[in-house]
């Protein structure tokens, strides 16, 4: 009964969103404000409708209605209520409804804004949002219905349908459901999909405005100003989703890693790349009136990648850890992506002449040129990701044999680009808008520059053997040398603004070379991190001091006002700092991870990287009400003879899904993370248990960096009192630090 109600409401929601598309289109055509208003109200109605439908689904999930196929698949009696609720997005059918629900919430929020000055955008924003919503609702209503019941077809197969298909018999009510996959019961996995989906969904809004701007011909940067904050929030959610996914993998999957370059991970990463590029390049449009066409392309690509990403996780085209059973919705997703993309591109071509740049990009070292370089680097990473994902398909077509690429492939081909992006974060804040290189950075002393370039070349020639051993291959050597040379040239060109920071960074790198590592790749990485951190922190320091002197404020007031009045700039710098902290963590775990494994009897120990891990005890017990068997080992950790504490690696076995889950014992410090896995054990504990132990150096900076990252985005995205209506002159009164000394 409740299932029928939920399904019925979902159908109504679909009809309402279709109506809103039609009403908006006809309203524009007939210039009928009343019809457009009707379309807007229809769109507002979808959120309460889908909410009702979702409540019906939650009711079924919580109350063990196992006659409904989706409920049977994702819940079981032993699951606590909160998990039954979150099981809503634990399976395909439910998560599509979840997508639509979020989409409708965002669409409603948008339509509730003040439209006074932008009324002509409204119908087109409605059309784009409602078409997207109608597409997802159609998927739910026709193909992936979460309310469907199970029936036996005459052939004995189980089919899912709302009403009894002819000739079928009802599947007898199951006493218990299969239960949510235990791997999905981790808090990270409960929040990870909603965050990712929030990110996906909120990127629809800037896209809708971009399309509205194209259709109406209002191709100034109004649409960008309206959607700037939406984009930032979308970016925040998407980033949060990606980080949580990584954290979940680190805690749950028990392989000591956080990111496996799996096609589905990449599918979520690709819109992040275009979104990040978009965030940067809109600033060029706002400040310089350039790259308007490019911004359109970026927002269209992001939208296409968002839908494509949802599709990849949902279609099983690619073999992946996340790949779900293949489902009939694949071709429809592809069709929808293709159709919307073609229409968008056609609109763009139509308006192409209106989107010409207002000013010319002159200097290669101006801030806009560096932003453009940042964009090109992000796009390069995107292209590599895309090539990697389709590599098996293409290689099969071309050579006949299927060739796949794994993490080493992605790491090798993207890390030089990430290195350059890190370096850009160091120099871009020092550059100026529109500046011509002749004005500021002219006098290139050729012998000096030549001498500086000769140093790394000679060093490579002398230490050819150890360097090529570290790099592993000739291209690796060439690439690393190229990076060093580019960095040297650019640092030379920016020498006036950079030399103090460069000295600090060099000192840190030399110190690390003597005390921590001689690995050249790691040292290049640490140098770039140190350089960017010093430059950015120095920018904070300098601007605060300047404000302190100008306004006679104390340091903390000056600092908070500085950030508060230039939130976008300093929020951005906080994000850059956070990226550097994350880079420290990534360098640590990628370059210096150590592992050991072995079976040890009680009282014996394993040694790794200065740690001694002693096996103390093991206990195994059932918790019948939870349907889980726990096996927990106690190990004591010593370092240099000092007792540091006990860890409790576990293995949980879930009866309903007949699956076990390995929970590591972790000892996180800023220096490293000791990560102990219980692999196996003998019934009599004296015989011993098998452990696998990782030491992941510096990895916790990755998580610290992600926390700082969220703070940075929130600073940048925090709503101004009424930013859109402040005249430009008034805005300029607030202290604006100049970027050149």
């Amino acid at each position, binding site marked *: 009964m409740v299932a029928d109600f939920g399904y019925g409401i979902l159908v109504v929601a679909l009809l309402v969103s279709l109506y809103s598309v039609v009403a908006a289109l006809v309203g524009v055509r007939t210039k009928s404000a009343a019809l457009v208003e009707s379309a807007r109200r229809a769109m507002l109605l979808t959120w309460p409708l889908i909410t009702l439908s979702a409540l019906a689904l939650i009711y079924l999930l919580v109350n063990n209605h196992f006659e409904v196929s989706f409920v049977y698949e994702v819940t079981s009696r032993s699951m606590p209520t909160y998990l039954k609720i979150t099981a809503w997005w634990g399976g395909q059918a439910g998560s599509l409804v979840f997508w639509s629900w979020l989409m409708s919430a965002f669409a409603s929020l948008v339509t509730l804004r003040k439209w006074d000055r932008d009324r002509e955008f409204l119908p087109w924003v409605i059309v784009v949002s409602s078409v997207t919503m109608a597409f997802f609702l159609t998927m739910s209503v026709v193909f992936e219905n979460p309310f469907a019941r199970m029936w036996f077809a005459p052939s004995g197969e189980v089919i899912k349908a709302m009403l009894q298909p002819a000739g079928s018999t009802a599947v007898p009510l199951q006493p218990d459901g299969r239960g949510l996959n235990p791997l999905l019961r981790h808090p990270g996995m409960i929040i990870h999909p909603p965050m990712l989906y929030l990110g996906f969904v909120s990127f629809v809004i800037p896209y809708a405005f971009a399309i509205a701007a194209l259709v109406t011909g209002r191709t100034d940067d109004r649409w960008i100003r309206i959607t700037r904050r939406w984009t930032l929030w979308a970016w925040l959610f998407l980033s949060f989703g990606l980080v949580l996914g990584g954290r979940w993998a680190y805690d749950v999957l028990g392989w000591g890693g956080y990111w496996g370059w799996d096609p589905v991970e990449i599918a979520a990463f690709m819109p992040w790349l275009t979104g990040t590029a978009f965030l940067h390049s809109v600033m060029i449009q706002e400040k310089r009136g350039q790259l308007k066409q490019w911004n359109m392309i970026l927002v269209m690509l992001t939208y296409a990648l968002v839908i494509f990403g949802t599709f990849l996780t949902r279609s*099983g085209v690619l073999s992946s850890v996340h790949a779900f059973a293949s489902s009939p919705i694949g071709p429809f997703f592809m069709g929808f992506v293709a159709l919307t993309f073609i229409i968008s591109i056609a609109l763009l071509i139509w308006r192409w002449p209106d989107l010409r740049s207002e000013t010319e990009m002159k200097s290669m070292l101006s801030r806009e040129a560096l932003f453009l370089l940042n964009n090109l680097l992000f796009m390069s990473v995107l292209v590599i990701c895309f090539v990697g994902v389709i590599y098996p398909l293409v290689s099969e077509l071309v050579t006949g044999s299927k060739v796949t690429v*794994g993490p080493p492939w992605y790491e090798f081909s993207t890390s030089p680009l990430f290195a350059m992006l890190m370096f850009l974060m160091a120099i871009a804040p020092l550059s100026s808008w529109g500046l011509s290189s002749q004005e500021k950075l002219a006098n290139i002393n050729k012998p000096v520059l030549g001498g500086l370039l000769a140093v790394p070349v000679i060093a490579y020639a002398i230490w050819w053997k150890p360097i090529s051993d570290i790099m592993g291959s000739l291209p690796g050597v060439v*690439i690393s040398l190229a990076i060093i040379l580019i960095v040297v040239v650019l640092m030379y060109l920016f020498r006036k603004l950079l030399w103090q920071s460069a000295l600090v960074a060099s000192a840190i790198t030399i110190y690390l070379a003597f005390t921590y590592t001689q690995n050249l790749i790691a040292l290049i990485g640490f140098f770039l991190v140190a350089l960017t951190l010093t430059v950015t922190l120095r920018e904070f320091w300098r601007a605060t001091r300047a404000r302190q002197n100008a306004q006679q404020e104390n340091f903390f007031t000056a600092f908070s006002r500085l950030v508060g009045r230039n939130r976008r700039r300093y929020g951005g710098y906080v994000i850059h700092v956070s990226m550097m902290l994350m880079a420290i963590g990534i360098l640590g775990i990628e370059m210096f991870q150590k592992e050991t494994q072995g079976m040890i009897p009680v009282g014996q120990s394993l040694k790794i990287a200065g740690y001694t891990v002693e096996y103390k005890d093991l206990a195994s017990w059932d918790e019948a009400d939870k349907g889980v068997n726990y096996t927990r080992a106690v190990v004591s950790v010593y370092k240099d003879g000092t007792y540091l504490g006990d860890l409790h690696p576990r293995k949980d076995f879930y009866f309903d899904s007949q699956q076990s889950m390995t929970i590591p014992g972790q000892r996180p410090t800023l220096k490293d993370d000791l990560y102990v896995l219980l692999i196996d054990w003998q019934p009599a504990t004296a015989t011993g248990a098998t452990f696998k132990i990782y030491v992941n150096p510096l990895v916790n900076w990755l998580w610290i960096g992600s926390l700082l990252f969220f703070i940075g985005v929130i600073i940048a995205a925090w709503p101004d009192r009424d930013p859109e209506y402040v005249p430009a002159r008034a805005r300029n009164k607030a202290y604006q630090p100049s970027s050149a000394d």
Partner: protein
Amino acid sequence: MKVNKFMIGGLFILAAVVFLVVSSSQANSEYFMTVDELNTKGASVMGKSLRVSGAIIGDTIQYDAATLTLTFEVANVPGDNAEIEAQGGLAEVLHQAVIDPTRSRIKVIYQGPKPDLLRNEAQAIMTGRMDENGIFHADELLLKCPTRYEEAVPEQAASK
């Protein structure tokens, strides 16, 4: 508009990306093969980096906890998704592969923790190399356990 130097810059980046992709592909790509192909090609692929998918035969799973050595056999399953769909979906294909004794099989050795999802009729996607005895040494083991009605989120086990 003076675009020349920017175009040169763009071309330079494009060339760099192509260089990165090509040089990375030479060093780091893996041939995806089915068990059938592996058994017929035999010596020609020995020592190459391969990626193989197969259905795990439960009776053959052996685990030595002292050395963390896992051995098992996998039976051939089609490598192509469309083909798998045509034969009734992944779960059905895996089931048929395991109960059919005429399917070609290979023996696999893997060093590391025993993955939680390792069980009869799971799909194993393995990266590694063949040795001269026709035994596949997996460096990485990825498991999928589809059930008939619902996707499963598989576990990933990796070792370097």
